[in-house]
């Protein structure tokens, strides 16, 4: 059966140019970048070049890029590292109700260990954070604000520049998890007043297990692990040479293609949104209608369960995902959907479709053909079992 992959927000296939670059590194460059001899210098050069590519794509300086094992580590390093380094200035952390677990659970962990006081700011029904609400949440002891650039489930893009201005005026550092946006949207730290940015390679056709944290010059960051002192002591451990090369190439390619590809994907996204809303009765679009990621079409279908939707679509040849995880028999709606104010029974039937570089109009047609009868069947089933 031909498969249609509509889960690019979960991960993307590795770009052939990226795979080739990584393959060359694995075959030809075995040195440790910390070694001073020729083999080490060769490896160091690759890491440096990757750092330059990532920095260029973000409008940053190479020294402001710290390589990590991915988005989760970048988020952890940002929150834990800044709160620890700025402890003398304050202990208050502000974040939002729709952050990825890598941010939200890290913030809660710091809170439960007594290391920070935490304020979680609510969002509106479309998942937008009001910059005024962030300002209102801040106090004299606030040292860090963390607001994601775009949400991974519903695709809503946050007014990060406005929030950045507020933070800068008050001398508060701003972190943004831009895992879903870097590569897809223009993101230039020389234009946006943000101090820390989390990046994850496998979201833009790079390898899994490698990411980066942008740390604006002058932002103090404590390390989370101790060791040989790589990455200027901010993230110690021998560099994942092939991985960071893959990250650099992937980000360069993504930026090269961004203008045309994001517009193309946005058109497919809009076809999905309009098609699903027209063909599936009582379908609810989640997230902002226009301020959303170019590849994200997410919905709730009251009377269905997210897990059943995913299974049924899988058996019909489609890869998609749901914000809901089935725990203990009942489908537990995602914290993001509940934060929008959706009722539990609506949020339980969530479906996220995210298009990518390989997605075609024919794929969209196939999905729009397959989905309505699946939703109808599931609704019939849940009506029977109630």
């Amino acid at each position, binding site marked *: 059966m031909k498969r249609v992959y509509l889960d690019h927000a979960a991960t993307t296939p590795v770009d052939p140019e990226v795979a080739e670059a990584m393959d060359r590194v694995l075959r030809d460059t075995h040195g440790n970048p910390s070694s001073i001899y020729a083999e080490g210098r060769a490896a160091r050069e690759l890491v440096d070049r990757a750092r330059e590519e990532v920095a260029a794509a973000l409008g940053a300086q190479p020294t402001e890029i710290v390589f990590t094992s991915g988005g989760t580590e970048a988020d952890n390093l940002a929150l834990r590292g800044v709160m620890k380094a700025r402890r003398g200035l304050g202990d208050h952390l502000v974040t939002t109700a729709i952050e990825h677990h890598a941010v939200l659970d890290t913030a809660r962990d710091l809170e439960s260990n007594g290391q920070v006081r935490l304020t979680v700011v609510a969002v509106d029904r479309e998942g937008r954070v009001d910059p005024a609400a962030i300002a209102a949440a801040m106090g004299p002891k606030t040292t860090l604000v963390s607001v994601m650039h775009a949400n991974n489930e519903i695709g809503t893009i946050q007014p990060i520049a406005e929030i950045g201005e507020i933070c800068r005026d008050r001398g508060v550092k701003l972190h943004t998890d831009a895992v879903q946006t870097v590569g897809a949207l223009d993101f230039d730290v020389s234009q946006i007043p943000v101090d820390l940015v989390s990046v994850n390679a496998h979201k833009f056709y790079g390898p899994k297990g490698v990411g980066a944290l942008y740390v604006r010059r002058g932002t103090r960051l404590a390390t989370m692990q101790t060791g040989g002192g790589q990455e200027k002591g901010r993230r110690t451990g021998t560099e994942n040479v092939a991985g960071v090369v893959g990250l650099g190439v992937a980000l360069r390619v993504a930026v090269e293609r961004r203008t045309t590809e994001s517009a193309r994907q946005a058109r497919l996204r809009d076809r999905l949104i309009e098609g699903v809303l027209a063909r599936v009765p009582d379908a609810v679009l989640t997230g902002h209608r226009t301020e959303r990621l170019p590849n994200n079409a997410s919905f709730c279908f009251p009377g269905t369960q997210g897990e*059943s939707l995913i*299974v*049924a679509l*899988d*058996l019909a040849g489609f890869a998609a995902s749901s914000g809901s995880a089935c*725990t*203990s*028999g009942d489908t537990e709606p995602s914290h993001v959907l509940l934060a929008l104010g959706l009722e539990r029974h609506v949020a339980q039937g969530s479906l996220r479709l995210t298009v990518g570089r390989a997605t075609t109009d024919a794929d969209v047609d196939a999905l729009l053909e397959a989905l309505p009868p699946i939703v109808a069947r*599931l609704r019939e*089933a849940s009506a029977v079992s109630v």
Partner: protein
Amino acid sequence: MSGGVDSSVAAALLLERGEDVVGVWMRLVPGGVDTDAPRCCGTDEAGEDARRAAATLGIPFYALDYADVFGKHVVDRFVEAYASGETPNPCVSCNHHVKFEALMRDVFAKFGGTRLATGHYARVADARDGTRQLLRARDAAKDQSYALYMLGQRELARVEFPVGELANKNETREIAARFGLPTATKAESMDICFIAGDYRDLVRSRAPRAFDAGPVERADGTVVGHHAGIGGLTVGQRSGTGVATGERLYVLRLEPERSAAVVGTREEITRTEYELRDVRFTRDAPPAATFETSAVLRYRGTPLAAAVDVSSDGARLRLTAPALVAPGQAVVFYQGDEVVGGGVVRAGSPA
């Protein structure tokens, strides 16, 4: 798929027959909970075994969560039964409410499946009148039809038990080897699969009142000793009392409302007549208002000659010779190799 060899081989046989097979594993204990129960098919570890078997066969595989329904219909009922002086039958509860109710509903309605196959050792056949028959497995030593008596025509029309057709365990192993499935037979999941240690610890923690001490009496009211709680006793078990008189005494009856255990001799505890509740028939109706049967009183028990009188709210079992079966246990009616139906022994039958 439980992760064991039987359900894996069942999937392999269907695949070989050209069926479009989807593997489903049921989580029965909450995720992350380590029960240490080596025979439990519902732990994450068993789920990993099932996932590997499905991958070996190259079929889609889903882990589905039934911890709530299992907890309510199997574990809670298990505790309630012991606390009320009955002897529960968790396999029957699990088949009834979890596998052939909740899972079956999901397989058909949600996933668009047409049939549900399991690794049970039993057979289903078409009778001449167009109905479906539930039969013993070809391999009598592995037969599990006893624990499936609650299946009616609705279920039987849509179930398959591929391993029930196999001649013996060697054939199962041969097929497993042919498909590259792990052949190591796990401990068979029968009896109380979801408990690692002593079931009484579970009952004690969930129903402490069942462990109030109380008197041990003879049928005439004579107190012959004391017990530590009826939750730890089963009708029919040897009683430690009566040693002084040299008699072998067995638990005859448990009376939870006054925490009393009544004991008697072998002659006193066996009976020829039992009242049954929750009576079900595989062909949805009894063969007759009164019918002759071979009654099986326990899993893999010897069939006993009996007659059944069906009534509006149950049935009466009349055995040819006295036998013992505890309240809460299932009595299954066979005619030849066919399961006709069955019911659950009522508590508080006359002594």
